[in-house]
């Protein structure tokens, strides 16, 4: 793969498409370009990549994924896209198609589309796939409530969740990346390398994506809403943090 390559990556949710792209990106000093069609309103992976590669060129190019030269260009194709048409318009370009698939998968079916097949995480199959997304930008979540919600969500309280990912602004100013893949051991929450937001409602993206089946979308949305801090509580927490920081400065 050279720096002018356009790489289209697909595979089932949770298998590790973004992880594979991150590994590739880390090899390029100048970074690269990333886009994931259909996720523009809830750009979880893009937000995380930007945080993971500070100062590197990792850009979403509008909604149309128009390429630039001189950088590797990664296109992440979600399960919901029709692969036969997903590469339309890219004919004639130096396009590399990569499928990331679970172990023990019959790779032959993927080779009808893919140039390369990489083995990812052993994700579970879903008969009636359902995807629920919600942007929570501007909302700050009570971290204890997030723990309860996460336990219930991943435990099946709102339907069978197979893959969950999200970015959550929490009361101490951190932005957390939350991740769950059924049957796979992944770190639940990691802090994103973003400045802590201690003043007012965060003006940066946060949101959640749940893939599974029989999801109770109304209950998911309502419970997530109940986890959010109101203005008064948020102001209280942020003032506490400011007071603690001021106190620490005095001691120093």
């Amino acid at each position: 793969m050279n720096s002018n390559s356009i790489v289209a990556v697909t595979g089932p949710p949770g298998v590790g498409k973004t992880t594979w792209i991150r590994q590739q990106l880390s090899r390029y000093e100048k970074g690269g370009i990333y886009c994931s069609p259909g996720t523009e309103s809830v750009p979880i992976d893009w937000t995380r990549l930007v945080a993971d590669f500070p100062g590197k060129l990792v850009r979403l190019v509008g909604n149309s994924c128009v390429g630039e030269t001189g950088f590797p260009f990664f296109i992440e194709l979600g399960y919901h896209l029709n692969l036969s048409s997903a590469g339309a318009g890219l004919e004639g370009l130096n396009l590399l198609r990569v499928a990331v698939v679970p172990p023990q998968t019959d790779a032959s079916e993927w080779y009808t589309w893919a140039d390369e097949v990489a083995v990812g995480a052993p994700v579970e199959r879903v008969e009636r796939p359902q995807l629920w997304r919600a942007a929570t930008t501007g909302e700050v979540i009570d971290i204890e409530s997030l723990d309860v919600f996460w336990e219930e969500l991943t435990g099946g309280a709102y339907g069978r969740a197979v893959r969950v990912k999200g970015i959550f602004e929490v009361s101490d100013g951190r932005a957390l990346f939350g991740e769950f893949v059924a049957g796979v051991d992944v770190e639940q929450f990691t802090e994103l390398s973003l400045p802590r937001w201690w003043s007012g409602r965060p003006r940066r993206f946060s949101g959640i994506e749940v893939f599974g089946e029989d999801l109770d979308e109304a209950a998911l949305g309502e419970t997530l809403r109940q986890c959010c801090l109101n203005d008064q509580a948020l102001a209280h927490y942020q003032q506490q943090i400011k007071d603690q920081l001021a106190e620490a400065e005095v001691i120093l």
Partner: protein
Amino acid sequence: MKFAVLSCIHGNLAALEAVLADAQAQKADRIYCLGDLVGYGPYPNEVVERIRTLEIQTCRGCWDDDTVEGVNACECSYPSVLAEQRGLAAHLWSNREVSDQARAFLAGLPYSLREGNLCFVHGSPYSAHEYLLPETDAFVAVERVLSTGADVLFCGHTHVPYVRTLDATPVEITVRGPASASGEVRQFSASLKRIVNAGSVGEPRHGRPNATYVLYDTERVEVDLREVEYDWRSTCAAIVEKGLPAIFAWRLARGLEFAERAEDPTHVCTR
């Protein structure tokens, strides 16, 4: 004498019936109830009526208190914003559902009961809202038992059953008052004390949906922590049918309390 001690029924009639049957099978001579007859569960009136008609000696729990007096606790009583909203939703539902007759019964319940060297309370001798956990500071635990004058303190409220033996140890306290501003040191030895937590009949928090209660043999001074299976699915179905938050059913089926205790369990809201 063999006493059955049960607590935290929370409107779960099926669980109560199963525990009553088990207590009878175990030949319990008398039953004591540590309160929280209502709250979260779908059958508050039926549970109150069963306790009332069986004339079970009962003390008042925190939910009984709030049902009679109205909720008078700030957000400090809940471990999270989500738990607070769920708790308040359950209170609203209970306030609509609980009959005047049941409310009057709850209002007449005492905060503690005595039987010889045994004392029965919901949370602690000081408050139905205070948690006595297995890891509560030993001095605090001894002090709570000593304050009752009893040797064995039965409590509930945590929803997890346990027995804690507080060995006879020397206790040193400093008394400060107008006559001794510098503090007068007194030493005494507390005799063997026990705290017995009865767990929860209707809303267990030990990872299984089964009801828990205790049997206490006064002659042998033995505690038997009982876990009783019952048709928890019927309670889960009734939770949904009666308009309580469906998540309560999901949590009951897994032995997870509906809204867990406050982050600081010894904190009692005094608002």
